[in-house]
């Protein structure tokens, strides 16, 4: 929290913490049109964990994870031309890399986001992924995904309900060096307020 307070005190930085449903086109449209300056970059940190053993997975548990990864990207990319950004970074997971128990749904959609295929390439192993979003990020030279291990402190708005849902989307305007603090403490602040963005 202290860092958000600090950043807000900086004259050369305009820090906003807004909440909106990133899967909702209308809400995203309102948010994006409220911005005073062109967007320089975006961190797609959205995540929903809906873990269950594979045989207990349902269409709904898959959909929730899909929304947090692909739907958010779809909505954002219909509003913003990705190529026009300095960067677009999506947080992915080692779950998609090595496969973790209970995360077949999560692994499937982070793999979508990872999109190992360069444009035009084929890969049998990821055929199903490609049918949904062929080369989601690989088609953009200014985008990459970051394979993250489990994050234990910031980034989660932890819920004990069956479907903890967190959809943070951080849009960066100017100062990259302070972005970590914005994301981390911003999430903490949003978490403390009991909302999601």
């Amino acid at each position, binding site marked *: 929290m202290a860092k958000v307070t600090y950043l807000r005190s900086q004259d050369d930085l305009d820090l906003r913490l807004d909440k909106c449903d990133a899967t909702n086109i209308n809400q995203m449209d309102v948010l994006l049109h409220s911005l005073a300056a062109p967007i320089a970059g975006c961190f797609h940190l959205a995540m929903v964990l809906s873990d269950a053993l594979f045989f207990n997975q349902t269409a709904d548990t898959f959909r929730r994870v899909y929304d947090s990864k692909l739907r958010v990207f779809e909505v954002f990319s219909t509003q913003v031309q990705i190529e026009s950004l300095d960067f677009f970074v999506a947080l992915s997971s080692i779950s998609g890399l*090595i496969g973790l128990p209970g995360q077949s749904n999560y692994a499937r959609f982070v793999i979508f986001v990872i999109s190992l295929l360069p444009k035009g390439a084929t890969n049998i192993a990821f055929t199903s992924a490609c049918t949904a979003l062929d080369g989601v990020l690989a088609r953009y030279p200014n985008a990459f995904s970051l394979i*993250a291990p489990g994050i234990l402190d910031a980034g989660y708005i932890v819920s004990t309900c069956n479907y903890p849902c967190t959809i943070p989307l951080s849009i960066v305007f100017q100062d990259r060096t302070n972005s970590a603090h914005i994301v981390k403490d911003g999430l903490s602040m949003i978490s403390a307020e009991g909302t999601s963005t």
Partner: protein
Amino acid sequence: MTHHVLTNSTFFSALWVSLADGLMKLDECPLNQYIPDLDWNSVDQHFNLSASCRHLLSPNSNCPVISKSHPHQGEGILSRVLELLEVSSSDFDVTQPLTVYGLDSISAAKLAAILRPYASFSQLQLLGAVTWSEIESQLQYLSQTDTLEATQPSRGKTNLLDVLGISQEDLSPDIPLSSYGLDSVGASILSSTLRPFMDVTSQQLMGEKSWADLLQITKLSRTLPEPDAQPLVEICGGSGIPVIILPGGNGVVGVFFGLQEHFHGALWAIQVTDSTPLESMETLVTFWKQHICEKWPHGPYRFAGYSSASVLGVVLTKMMEDAGEEVAQLTFLDHFPMLWAHLESDLLRERTAAEILDLVDQLGYSILEMLRSDPTIGPKIVANHQAALLDLPDASPHNRIMVKNWRAFTPLLWNFLRQFRPTNGEKSDNNFMEMLDAWISSVKAPLVLVVAEYGVVNGTLGGWPDLGASRISKPVKVHYLSGVGHFGIFGDERVARILAP
């Protein structure tokens, strides 16, 4: 690119280094995917990497993962804390809150990581008014009760309840933790916070494991006899005719504690100690008989032979019966003496001392197979046992002793079985089976056999679905236990009932 190794779970501040690094890389050239320099050994330890990813492990990754001890190194930890806070020891007052020295959320995260092997402090706790003296007292508590924690995982249970966000009353030990909403993040946190109390991976936690299952796993790893340990160990202190279990070839009793949950009555177990004579099967069993009779002078007795102690069970029972005592039941737990006939054509041939040692280790690897196929056994236990079999220096003392016992006991068994080879020159398998059958069937006690679905029947010795029970002339009551392995059977209620019907 910066060199920043991340473990299987990390803090956002650490991840940001990778994020910033990726952005700088993007300035140089396009990239699709940024994979941080993960500590793959740590990932493997927690998630058991598949074969396709194992090339990522460092060459010594087959070495065992030794549980972190809780060293009495308060000063060493303090020096790391002072370094983190950038405060000299002369300026540091242990009674002042650490926030006085500029502890912020990021440094608190780092401090929590430093302390994690020794004590569990959350980032928020550290950002409260906690002082070093308070932290140190917690560290001392852990070190003084190191042994106690292995047998008294109540603090582990407290951590479990914290992570699950439920009360003690709401926790049912037999319900899988996933039923309480434990997801992969929670499993990762829980695995980390339980580490001082038990070695359990997040993969195991995400499975259908219940709290009772976790306790069973813990018991598997607390089996080292003390130097002055007695051969006869009381597992359950009930009344009535005691059931006495003879240990498998590793000579330890740890797995038998799993019976405590479901067994009603008196349950004792034999363990190999420093005083145990390992000269021959007869001297070994005579020694154990003496200790049994000191505590329970006359029959009836109930005996059980676990694993390769199936032969010992017959020897002991016959010895008691020859002495005029009654044995009410002899139970074979996931092994049957006739199994040796399955391998006889090669097993009992003439061997040099070196060849016998090779044979012993070959058979030792069959235990490794059974560990791997047992649903209750995690990869760390398998790795530790493998390391001991390979005589790697980092093998845990616990596993070293088990392998040492195995290497001492198995030659005795090999010599003993050789007596059933015919002396008339017709050394066929059938003759061996006939002689072995005659010996086993001469037991007066009713014979009972427990066959675990994922146990010995699947291993090197397997091949007979009933482990050879139907190949002897004396009837054997066979119980087939589904869903359990060679080591997990003791946590199964059915075994408790079979041992003392």
